[in-house]
C-alpha cells in the first residue's frame, strides 16, 4: 500500500507540526487498565520531552495516548479513519477539541464527510506509520488493528517497538509476538527516546514510573482486599470471597467501601485496583 503524501492530508488544527521527532502510540480498543496507564504515562513523558504523539483517536490505547500527551503539555496528532469533520467515535468530541486547542491536529487522507467504514481503518493505520518516526504498540490481542500499523511501519522502514505485558493476558499476545519477531522492547520512556535518537537519553532498565494513587485511608480490613487485586485482570467479588474465605456479603461491602475511596474500580464483571488519580470513576 502506498500511503498518501503528508502535505496532501486534510487537516484541522496545526499541520504539519513543528519539526521534531514523532512517535505513534497504538494498541487495542479493548485495553486493560494496565495498557491505558502505560499509554498515558509514555505519551505524557514523551510529549513533555518534545515528541509529537501520533495516534488514532480510537477508544482504549489511542485515547489514553492523546490524553497523556495533552496532560504532558505537548502536541498530539490524531489520524482519522473518517473525514476530519467527523469525530469517530462520537464520544471523543471533547478530546478532539482539546487536541486542536493544544496545538495539535486531526488529519485524514479521506475527504470531508467520509463516514467510518471498516476498510478505511487499515489505510488509516498505514498513514499513521508513514507520518511517524517510530511506532510503539502498547497492547494488542491477536487480531488487533495495531498489528497492521506495525506491519506498515516495517514496510516503510520505521522502527517498531512494543510494550510487554502479563503472560496471562490475551491483550499482550500481539505485543509479545512483535517482540519475538524483533520489535524493540519498551520498558520506559527512555527506550523510546533512544530509538528516536533524542540526545541525552541512555537506555537504563528502571521501570516506567507507576502513576500515583490518590491518597486514601485504608482501614485495617480493607488492606487485605487490595493486595489481591491486580491492575489488569478483574477479580469478581465471588472469587475474592473464595480466596479470602469470607462471606460474599462482607466482600461486596468492603469492595464498595474501597470503590468509594477510589482505590478500586469496576471492570467487566469484577474489580481492579485503580491506577488513576481521582476518586471512584463511574
Amino acid at each position, binding site marked *: 500500500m502506498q500511503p498518501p503524501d503528508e502535505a496532501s492530508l486534510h487537516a484541522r488544527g496545526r499541520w504539519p507540526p513543528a519539526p521534531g521527532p514523532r512517535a505513534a502510540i497504538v494498541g487495542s480498543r479493548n485495553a486493560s487498565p494496565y495498557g491505558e496507564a502505560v499509554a498515558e504515562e509514555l505519551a505524557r513523558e514523551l510529549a513533555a520531552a518534545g515528541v509529537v504523539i501520533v495516534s488514532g483517536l480510537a477508544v482504549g490505547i489511542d485515547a489514553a495516548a492523546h490524553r497523556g500527551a495533552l496532560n504532558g503539555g505537548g502536541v498530539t496528532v490524531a489520524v482519522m479513519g473518517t473525514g476530519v469533520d467527523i469525530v469517530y467515535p462520537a464520544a471523543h468530541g471533547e478530546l478532539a477539541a482539546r487536541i486542536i486547542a493544544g496545538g495539535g491536529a486531526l488529519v485524514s487522507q479521506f475527504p470531508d464527510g467520509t463516514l467510518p467504514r471498516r476498510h478505511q481503518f487499515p489505510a488509516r493505520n498505514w498513514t499513521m506509520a508513514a507520518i511517524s518516526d517510530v511506532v510503539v504498540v502498547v497492547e494488542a490481542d491477536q487480531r488487533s488493528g495495531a498489528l497492521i500499523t506495525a506491519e506498515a511501519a516495517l514496510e516503510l522502514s520505521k522502527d517498531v517497538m512494543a510494550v510487554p505485558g502479563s503472560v496471562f493476558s490475551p491483550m499482550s499476545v500481539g505485543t509479545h509476538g512483535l517482540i519475538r519477531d524483533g520489535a524493540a522492547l519498551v520498558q520506559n520512556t527512555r527506550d523510546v527516546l533512544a530509538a528516536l535518537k533524542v540526545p541525552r537519553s541512555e537506555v537504563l532498565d528502571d521501570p516506567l514510573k507507576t502513576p500515583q494513587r490518590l491518597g486514601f485511608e485504608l482501614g485495617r480490613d480493607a488492606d487485605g482486599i487490595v493486595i489481591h487485586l491486580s491492575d489488569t485482570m478483574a477479580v469478581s467479588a465471588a472469587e475474592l470471597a473464595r480466596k479470602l474465605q469470607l462471606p460474599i*456479603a462482607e466482600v461486596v461491602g468492603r469492595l464498595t467501601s474501597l470503590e468509594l475511596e477510589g482505590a478500586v474500580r469496576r471492570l467487566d*464483571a469484577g474489580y481492579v485496583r485503580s491506577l488513576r488519580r481521582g476518586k471512584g470513576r463511574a
Partner: protein
Amino acid sequence: MSGPPGAGKTMLARCLAGILPPLALDEALEVAQIRSLLGELPAHTPLDWVRPFRAPHHGVSMAGLIGGGAGVAQPGEISRAHNGVLFVDELAEFQASVLQALRQPLEAGRITITRSGGSVAFPARFTLVAATNPCPCGWAGDGRRACRCTPAVVDAYRRKLSGPLLDRIDLKVNVRRVPPTLLANEPVGERSAIVRERVIAARAQELERQGCLNAFLKPARLRRHAALESAPRKTLERWAEQQGLSARGFHRAWRVARTAADLDGSDQIAEHHVLEALGYRLHDAAA
C-alpha cells in the same frame, strides 16, 4: 443478573423458588383464585403451597404479560406470578413497551385493565428476576473470550437495558462463567434448605418489627423502623451524592440494607450492611 451465556443465570433464577418460604394460607388462596379464573385449578389439589414461578418467552405480547386480551380481560403472566417469581430471561429481547408496562404493577402490586365497559384489577405482586447478556454477542468482560461487538453496538444495547425499569431493580449482580476446573473441585455451597431457614427467620423478624416485609416500607415508616445511625447514614448519603442516586434509589438501597441486617439477625443496620446494599447497585450499565 448480567453475564455471558452459560454462566448459570437461568439456573440461579429457578433456584430462587427453593429459598423462598412456602405460601401462607391467604397467599395460597389468592393464587388459587387466579388459577380458577384461568380455568387452571386442579380439582384434586386446589391449594398449592409452592410459590409460582413464571418465565414468559421474550416474544410475549403485552396482553400475555400484563393481562387483558380480546373479550373478557384475562390475567397475564404477572398475575400468574402473583406471590411468586416472574423471571424475565434475555431482558434485551423483550419489546421496550412491554417492559415499561411492568413499572406500574411493580410499584402498586396490582394491574388495572381499563375497558370501555369498565375496569378490572388483578393482583400482581411478584418478585422480578431478570437476566441479560452484557452485550449482543454475550462475551463482553468475560476475560477469556473476546467480545465481537463494536463500541457503538454495546452502547446502544446498554442504553436499551437502562431506564426506569432498571432503576427499580434493587439487586444487580454480574454473574461470571465458572471455569470447568472449578466446577469439578468446588466444594458444595450452602444447601437451599439452609438458606431458606435464614430467609424465613429474617421475614419473621421483619413482620414482628413492623407488620410487613421491608419491601413494603414507605419512606416515613422506613425512618421509623429502619433508623440509621451516624456512620451508616453518612455512607449512604455520601454514595447517593457521589453517584447521583435518585430519591427512589436512595430509599431502595436503604430497604436492602435493612434486609441485609435482618438476614444477619441484627436489629441495628451497620455500615457494612449499607455498603453491601450499595454494592448491588451497578452503575456502569449505561450513563
